[in-house]
């Protein structure tokens, strides 16, 4: 056959490529490329129009330069011109350039579409294929709009050439993926499905990709494809290796198509029709049988092709999960592959077995391969394969083999590749928790995990072990003893120090009887690690120390000494310093009773889904951890925690909704559970009493007490104002057209607003109502003007009483001065403690620019004259929107008056329309605004629309008012 002869190519191109290859340095190469780019640019820009050959050559050079990693920002137009050439080679390179270099939102798409349209209607199959390729490769929405109607026609037309049909099928698939709403299959459905019966195998190959995608999205409409696919598959599988001629690949008939057919069937449940099902089972059996036959060729291509089909068949068997016989055969087959000398097959076998392990029919059969899999984990040279082995061990783990598998995974961790360590750690942690029968084993495993791979132990893992130890009485003593021993190691990981600090702080008393772990020994051991640790860990250790003072009064002098030393009490880190000061003060002032209450043992954590499992799921992406497994994890987790619903939990959680959401708080559940029982309301007020005696440090300390109450890691303590509530914008919208009302309400607190405005000044009264019977302490409010608002609005807050008695209401006055036009609302942050728990919420203060309107009465003539004066585009803002409420004239009038403008009667020639006028008063300027609201009241309810137009002498004002008002009607 004639080979592509090298002489035919473009000489200039070959010379250029040779030049580049001869460049000795990167600089020389860049220089040569820049020279060429300049040359091409001047050629394209030159007066002399280029002939097709030159354009083709230059476009090809640009493609080559692009391949070398240089941006190409010109030449697109020349490429588009090539499309309309009637020479095949020019058209071809034009299309190639566009497919490689034009993205779907290019401005050239319309020109390209024109060229494509011409080629599609040319009836020249080669040109049609080029055009279809281009659509499939670019696949933009504009292309879908232009061709989504045409392509199905080409696909099913009787006189279309096979090669064009193939291209049309894939082209349609691409358009369906990018713009499913534009590809309407309705009338074509059955004809497309019947392409599965096409004589030409190439057409079937292309069509099946399309049908698979469509079936995934519309399984009902395409379900007739199942029986057609089964019969097609059956014909291929039972054919002799020579029947399909060209589609036989190394003695395997049509391997690619067989794989695709098996994939298509995986979109559906097993066929209901007995005959179809029988035929399919027969196919699957034949495929399994063929795997046992001696190979027809020694070439790897032969076994690849054969096994590609086999793996898809097994995937289908697993998908059906209903034929125990086939499942077990599949498992045995995969078992053989586990020991195959081809690495690829071992990899795929491990991967498939992973899914097989979750089937109840084959779980036991999979388990019989445990030794092989463990061996793979230990001996495979390829990290991809080892990773699959680890996945499979995780999937086949159950109560019977958990100890063995966890032990193997732990020992593998010592040498595991860095890339998979974190995932391995998560898996070990989950398995240890899920299948723990005795909790000392669980604690040992996690501590080992920290010892072996401490850097890869994420926070979730060590939070979890603490949650579990706290919730299980029977393991607390053992845990204390084990961490104490682990901390003896000269170098231990910081995560170990964290776990150690926390557990000894809570349960150190359980091992204090042994003189080898007496309170002072414990303290000295912890403190010996202190200086090597990061700030968060040190903060945690300080909390452990104060807990020690409560547990072991005899350690008090030593610990106070430590807290008092300069490196603590004058630490440059504010968190550490604050803790040192507060703890020192607390330990010297509070009576033992108070200390015992404040530093009480942590209450059990509420039962929750393991955060580790959630993390693994996130890491692996959806689908990697099956829903089934998650549910199981949840169930087992619940069993393990053993803690039922605690009284008071629900109210605590309700209260926590208003406080700062913090990721670590969610994990440890400190905010939700701890403060309630560690510091019941009475203890909370006691504590405040303690501090009010303590002098100047009191307010700060009082505001930050939960840090040690729960001995939480400091990251949990956030005194920053919370971000605005998600609903705060909506709340704000309620106050655009009115000045009084309820701004906010939750279970604890109600906030009412009354406000009045004159000129550019406003006064607002806020009423804070305590809805509970318990007092709010440290009640503070602040208003902030973020960003440029600071220079636009002057807001002054009168102080408010820090104590709000149960059932009482306090009032706060806010003075507002509008300096210039503004668009954002100031933020109101409210903080208080309710029963010891910090409540922190941020709202938007209901101040909008329209509050400073002065109504202006004017005649129709004046109105329209001014309207015309404000005719520059940026002075106008317009919105057309659906009516949210009934179009009641009186309600509309009231709202427009509430806006602050004058409602002008008999101004608009159309009596249904509303027009308003007003002047916004600010300190810096006055801004005139005109408004026109046009309802289409005649329309059906549900289709009623408004057109709102605003014009103002300052452009931002019209826009802002338009946004505000569009929400009101």
């Amino acid at each position, binding site marked *: 056959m004639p080979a592509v002869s090298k002489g*035919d190519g473009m000489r200039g191109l070959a010379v250029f490529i040779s030049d580049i290859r001869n460049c000795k340095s990167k600089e020389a190469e860049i220089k040569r490329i820049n020279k060429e780019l300049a040359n091409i640019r001047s050629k394209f820009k030159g007066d002399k129009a280029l002939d097709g050959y030159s354009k083709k050559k230059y476009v090809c050079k640009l493609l080559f330069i692009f391949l070398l990693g240089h941006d190409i920002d010109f030449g697109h137009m020349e490429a588009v011109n090539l499309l309309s050439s009637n020479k095949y080679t020019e058209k071809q390179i034009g299309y190639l350039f566009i497919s490689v270099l034009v993205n779907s939102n290019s401005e050239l798409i319309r020109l390209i579409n024109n060229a494509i349209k011409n080629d599609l209607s040319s009836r020249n199959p080669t040109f049609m294929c080029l055009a279809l390729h281009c659509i499939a490769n670019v696949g933009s929405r504009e292309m879908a709009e232009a061709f989504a109607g045409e392509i199905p026609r080409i696909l099913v037309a009787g006189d279309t050439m096979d090669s064009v049909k193939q291209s049309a099928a894939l082209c349609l698939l691409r358009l369906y993926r990018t713009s499913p709403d534009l590809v309407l299959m309705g009338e074509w459905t059955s004809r497309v499905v019947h392409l599965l019966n096409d004589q030409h195998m190439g057409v079937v190959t292309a069509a099946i990709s399309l049908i698979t995608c469509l079936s995934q999205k519309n399984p009902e409409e395409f379900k007739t494809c199942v029986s057609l696919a089964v019969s097609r598959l059956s014909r291929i599988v039972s054919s002799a290796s020579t029947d399909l001629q060209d589609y036989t690949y190394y003695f395997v008939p049509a391997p690619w198509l067989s794989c695709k057919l098996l994939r298509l069937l995986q979109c559906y449940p097993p066929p209901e029709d007995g005959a179809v099902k029988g035929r399919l089972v027969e196919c699957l059996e034949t495929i399994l049988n063929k795997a046992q036959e001696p190979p027809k060729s020694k070439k790897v*291509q032969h076994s690849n092709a054969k096994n590609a089909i086999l793996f*898809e068949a097994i995937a289908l068997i697993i998908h059906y999960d209903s034929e125990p016989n086939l499942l077990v055969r599949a498992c045995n087959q995969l078992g053989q592959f586990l020991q195959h000398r081809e690495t690829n097959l071992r990899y795929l076998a491990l991967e498939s077995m992973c899914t097989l392990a979750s089937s109840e029919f084959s779980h036991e059969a999979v388990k019989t391969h445990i030794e092989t899999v463990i061996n793979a984990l230990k001996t495979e040279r390829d990290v991809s394969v080892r990773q699959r082995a680890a996945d499979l061990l995780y999937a086949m783990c159950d109560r019977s083999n958990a100890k063995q598998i966890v032990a193997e995974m732990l020992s593998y961790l010592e040498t595991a590749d860095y890339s998979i360590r974190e995932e391995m750690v998560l898996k070990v942690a989950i398995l240890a928790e899920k299948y723990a029968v005795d909790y000392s084993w669980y604690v040992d495993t996690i501590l080992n995990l920290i010892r072996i791979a401490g850097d890869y132990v994420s926070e979730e893992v060590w939070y979890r072990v603490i949650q579990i130890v706290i919730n299980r009485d029977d393991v607390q003593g053992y845990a204390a003893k084990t961490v104490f021993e682990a901390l003896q190691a000269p170098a231990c990981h910081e995560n170990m120090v964290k776990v150690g600090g926390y557990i000894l702080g809570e349960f150190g008393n359980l091992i204090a009887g042994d003189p080898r772990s007496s309170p002072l020994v414990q303290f000295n051991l912890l403190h010996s690690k202190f200086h090597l640790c990061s700030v968060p860990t040190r903060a945690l250790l300080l909390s452990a120390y104060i807990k020690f003072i409560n547990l072991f009064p005899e350690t008090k002098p030593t610990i106070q000494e430590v807290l008092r030393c300069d490196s603590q009490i004058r630490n440059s880190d504010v968190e550490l310093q604050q803790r040192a000061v507060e703890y020192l003060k607390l330990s010297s002032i509070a009576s033992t009773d108070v200390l015992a209450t404040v530093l009480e043992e942590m209450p059990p954590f509420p039962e929750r889904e393991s955060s580790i499992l959630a993390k693994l799921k996130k890491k692996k992406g959806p*689908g990697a951890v099956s829903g089934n497994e998650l549910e199981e994890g949840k169930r087992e987790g619940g069993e393990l925690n053993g803690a039922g619903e605690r009284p008071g939990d629900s109210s605590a959680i309700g209260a926590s909704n208003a406080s700062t959401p913090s990721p670590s708080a969610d994990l440890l559940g400190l905010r939700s559970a701890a403060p309630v029982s560690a510091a019941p309301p009475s203890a909370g007020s006691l504590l405040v009493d303690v501090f009010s005696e303590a002098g100047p440090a009191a307010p700060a300390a009082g505001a930050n007490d939960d840090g040690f109450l729960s001995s939480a890691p400091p990251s949990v303590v956030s005194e920053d104002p919370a971000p605005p509530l998600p609903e705060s914008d909506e709340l704000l919208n309620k106050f655009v057209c009115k000045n009084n009302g309820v701004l906010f309400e939750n279970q604890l607190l109600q906030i009412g607003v009354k406000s009045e405005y004159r000129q550019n000044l406003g006064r607002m009264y806020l009423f804070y109502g305590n809805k509970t019977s318990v007092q709010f302490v440290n009640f503070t409010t602040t208003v902030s003007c973020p960003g440029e608002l600071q220079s636009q609005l002057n807001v002054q807050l009168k102080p408010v009483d820090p104590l709000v008695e149960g059932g009482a209401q306090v009032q706060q006055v806010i003075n507002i001065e509008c300096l210039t036009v503004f668009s954002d609302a100031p933020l109101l942050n409210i903080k208080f403690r309710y029963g010891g728990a910090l409540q922190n919420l941020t709202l938007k203060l209901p101040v909008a620019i329209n509050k400073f309107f002065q109504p202006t009465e004017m005649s129709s003539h004046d109105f329209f004259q001014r309207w015309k004066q404000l005719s520059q585009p940026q002075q106008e803002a317009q919105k057309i929107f659906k009516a949210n409420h009934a179009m009641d004239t009186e309600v509309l009038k009231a709202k427009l008056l509430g806006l602050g403008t004058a409602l002008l009667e008999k101004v608009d020639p159309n009596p249904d329309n509303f027009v308003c006028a007003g002047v916004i008063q600010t300190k810096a300027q006055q801004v005139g605004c005109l408004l026109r609201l046009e309802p289409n009241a005649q329309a059906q309810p549900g289709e009623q629309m408004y057109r709102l137009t605003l014009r103002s002498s300052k452009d931002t004002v019209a826009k802002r008012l338009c946004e505000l008002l569009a929400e009101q009607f």
Partner: protein
Amino acid sequence: MIKAILIFNNHGKPRLIRFYQYFAEDMQQQIIRETFHLVSKRDDNVCNFLEGGSLIGGSDYKLIYRHYATLYFVFCVDSSESELGILDLIQVSVIIVNVCFHVQVFVETLDKCFENVCELDLIFHMDKVHYILQEVVMGGMVLETNMNEIVAQVELQNRMEKSEGGLSAAPARAVSAVKNMNLPEIPRNINIGDINIKVPSLSPF
């Protein structure tokens, strides 16, 4: 779906790149570098699949690759493709490239001389290799797997190219010479009073 086909040499120099999902140019280069980094450090006798890089789509994507003497052929695919199938497809593509560039008689020699591919073919005929790949993969999906069919299509292209070269190119040159003559500017907008008539913009010659 095939997200991308990347061919680069042992030093990471790209020889052919084809993305079937849009990525900005600099992202494309990053993906090439990351992919090269991932595959080049692997031994030759390990498996041909690995988890996809972080850039192209995370854990649902796999890289399926073959290493020939100086070149890596890498297909970035999602989980809807059969790994072994793609591996065969790479082999098929290489065979076809070889057939199209070098071989007079095809079927008999199939088993012998296609274990490799010549880097120079790709360098000097990048456009041709693109065209060959286009007969195999279209918009990220496999169009045809029958080697004879693909080779026949490429052969057809070559014949058309031949017929357009040589003598047949002369008339085209004449046409372009005519087009180059200075024609008076065609007015785009003709104003007749208030009425604006838009003349359809003609494609520049």
